[in-house]
């Protein structure tokens, strides 16, 4: 038997924070690839601390639904899950975006735990960002005449946070699909509120590299972008700012293709997933969005 455990931050205050985790878990459950699929959270239940005892499987694949390597994936999750012998170096990721997986015993259960790198730094995540651009514009060929801005939180406390954003920015730039691709940040330069200065393309798709929609993606960012003066009044998609049309996508983690990234992480760690990725792909074909 094999289990998939998706671990995410969750919130004591905002019930929507865990919604993408549940959605992706449900999509993966529906493929039948795992005998058990569980969600676990830092701020909700089941906690990281107790989730491993709630699965019966001997082989457990743990995939963090986090954007970057750093405090949570390197310290909090392995500590709370009691992964015996965990060292950051086991992930062999010197550049902060290359963690794959490492295998442990947890010291409160008789199970083998394959601890995977975060979903956010997987290369397939670049495709999810592009898919998000397709979803929000309703155009599966979106690219020409468009700029793509990827928003990261950015923080001086964790340099890996920005590395994940730059990694995907570089990869998507390399696809030669959008006229321009730029990284912008909430808490460091270059900043979100200057986004139109970095693009000459008339249309800009803005995708926040966040797991869940919440305070930042629904309140701060739409205001910082200049899409609205007051988030409570909502914001238009697309909206006009400084002569550009801005297509604001909301958190990338809510995109249904994220389930594919989670599956891929587990598969790389040795999980048998059969044709689950194809089935997720069919399920998460781009929807025609726009308002």
């Amino acid at each position: 038997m094999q289990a998939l455990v998706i671990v995410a931050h969750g919130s004591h205050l905002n019930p929507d924070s865990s919604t993408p985790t549940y959605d992706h878990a449900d999509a993966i459950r529906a493929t039948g690839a795992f005998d058990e699929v569980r969600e676990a959270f830092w701020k909700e239940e089941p906690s990281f601390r107790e989730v491993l005892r709630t699965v019966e499987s001997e082989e457990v694949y743990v995939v963090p639904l986090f954007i970057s390597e750093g405090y949570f994936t390197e310290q909090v999750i392995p500590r709370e899950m009691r992964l015996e012998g965990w060292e950051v170096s086991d992930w062999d990721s010197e550049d902060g975006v290359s963690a794959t997986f490492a295998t442990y015993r947890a010291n409160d259960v008789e199970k083998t735990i394959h601890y995977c790198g975060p979903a956010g730094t997987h290369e397939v995540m670049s495709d999810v960002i592009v898919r998000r651009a397709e979803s929000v514009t309703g155009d599966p060929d979106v690219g020409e005449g468009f700029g793509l801005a990827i928003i990261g939180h950015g923080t001086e406390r964790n340099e890996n946070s920005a590395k994940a954003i730059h990694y995907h920015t570089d990869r998507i730039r390399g696809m030669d699909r959008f006229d321009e691709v730029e990284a912008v940040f909430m808490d460091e330069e270059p900043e979100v509120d200057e986004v139109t200065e970095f693009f000459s393309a008339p249309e800009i798709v803005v995708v926040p590299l966040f797991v869940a929609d919440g305070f930042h993606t629904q309140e701060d960012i739409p205001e910082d972008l200049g899409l609205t003066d007051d988030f409570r009044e909502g914001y238009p998609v697309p909206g006009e700012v400084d002569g550009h049309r801005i297509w604001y996508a909301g958190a990338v983690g809510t995109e249904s293709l994220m389930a594919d990234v989670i599956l891929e992480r587990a598969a790389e760690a040795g999980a048998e997933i059969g044709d689950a990725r194809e089935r997720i792909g069919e399920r998460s074909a781009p929807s025609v969005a726009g308002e």
Partner: protein
Amino acid sequence: MNDAQVGALVEAAEEGVEVDGLRVTRVDEGYRFETPETIHRGLSESALRSVAEESPWFVSNWHYWTHVVEGPERARYDFLRWVEGADDHDVPKRYEALSSGVTREWGQLSITATLADDGLRRYDLRHGADRDVSEEDLETYVDPLDARGIATYDDDGRYRPLSTAPTLRTGWVYPDLDGRALVETVEFLYPATVENWHRERRGELDVTHFRETAERQTGIYSIVEGLTVEELEAAAEACCVDSQCLKRRMWDEDEETPLRVPRGEEAFPCREPCSLFVTAARKFVTLGREETRSYEFELTPTEKEQVEAIVDAVADGRVGEIREADLNDGANRYRARYLRALRGGEHGLSDTPTYPEDHD
């Protein structure tokens, strides 16, 4: 009981069967079939089938626990047996009770086990407050995954960050769960409670006390180590009593130092301070770092009691119950507004600055 169950029993007899008073074995001279009421020896296979058919309850009961629930190693085996009182009543008594339904409370949940065809069980799961409400008057659910949605908001539509807070919403029912789905649903409503209860029953509950939990914290939570024992007692009294969380607290300050705060009454244990408690503890530590000061207020005796009544009403979650026109309740909204209008000022109560040095 059906033919497949009898077939499975004959097969299992080779290894020996023993569940709830039913014993079936194979020895050289044939099969031996025993219940508390009867013993048959030297049976041929077809004779074994015949006597098995005469004890359908014992056979279906054996089949349920070994083949459907899949045996005693699992938490759900213990839990489902607890639900129907399997360790307290023999098979005939239990089957008679199950025919009309056996009900157990698990936190705010009410679980009723009844017999389905061939000795299988079906379980009705609902809020205990809805125990006597007819199924048609409740929202009906089938999929255990939906329980996550039930657990998200309370009856007033407020988000519930703590699953075992005694605020589970009412008005829903899972009328027909099998054993596996029942446990799954309960675990979505009250995560890890079945597993930790199971460990406790086996004497294997791993308790992590407050000091050990605090030492483990990093980042902004590392300061919770600074909580004094007096503050820890107050924090447990604030957060960990039955009125706030239904888990039975098994952790203390450390292994040698029990807290005075009552542990709680429920079946399922709390094996470690939870993330909400750690977050609260962090706030309490920062509060405790402040020095006290003396302030001078002019209040009437009744106004002093009114301030105390307001604190009590908020702390006890009673604010919503206070009637609009009940001016005798110190925490009545008009009374509170009157106090603020009369005694409040630019600098708060009695117009006394919180930081007088900023106003000299």
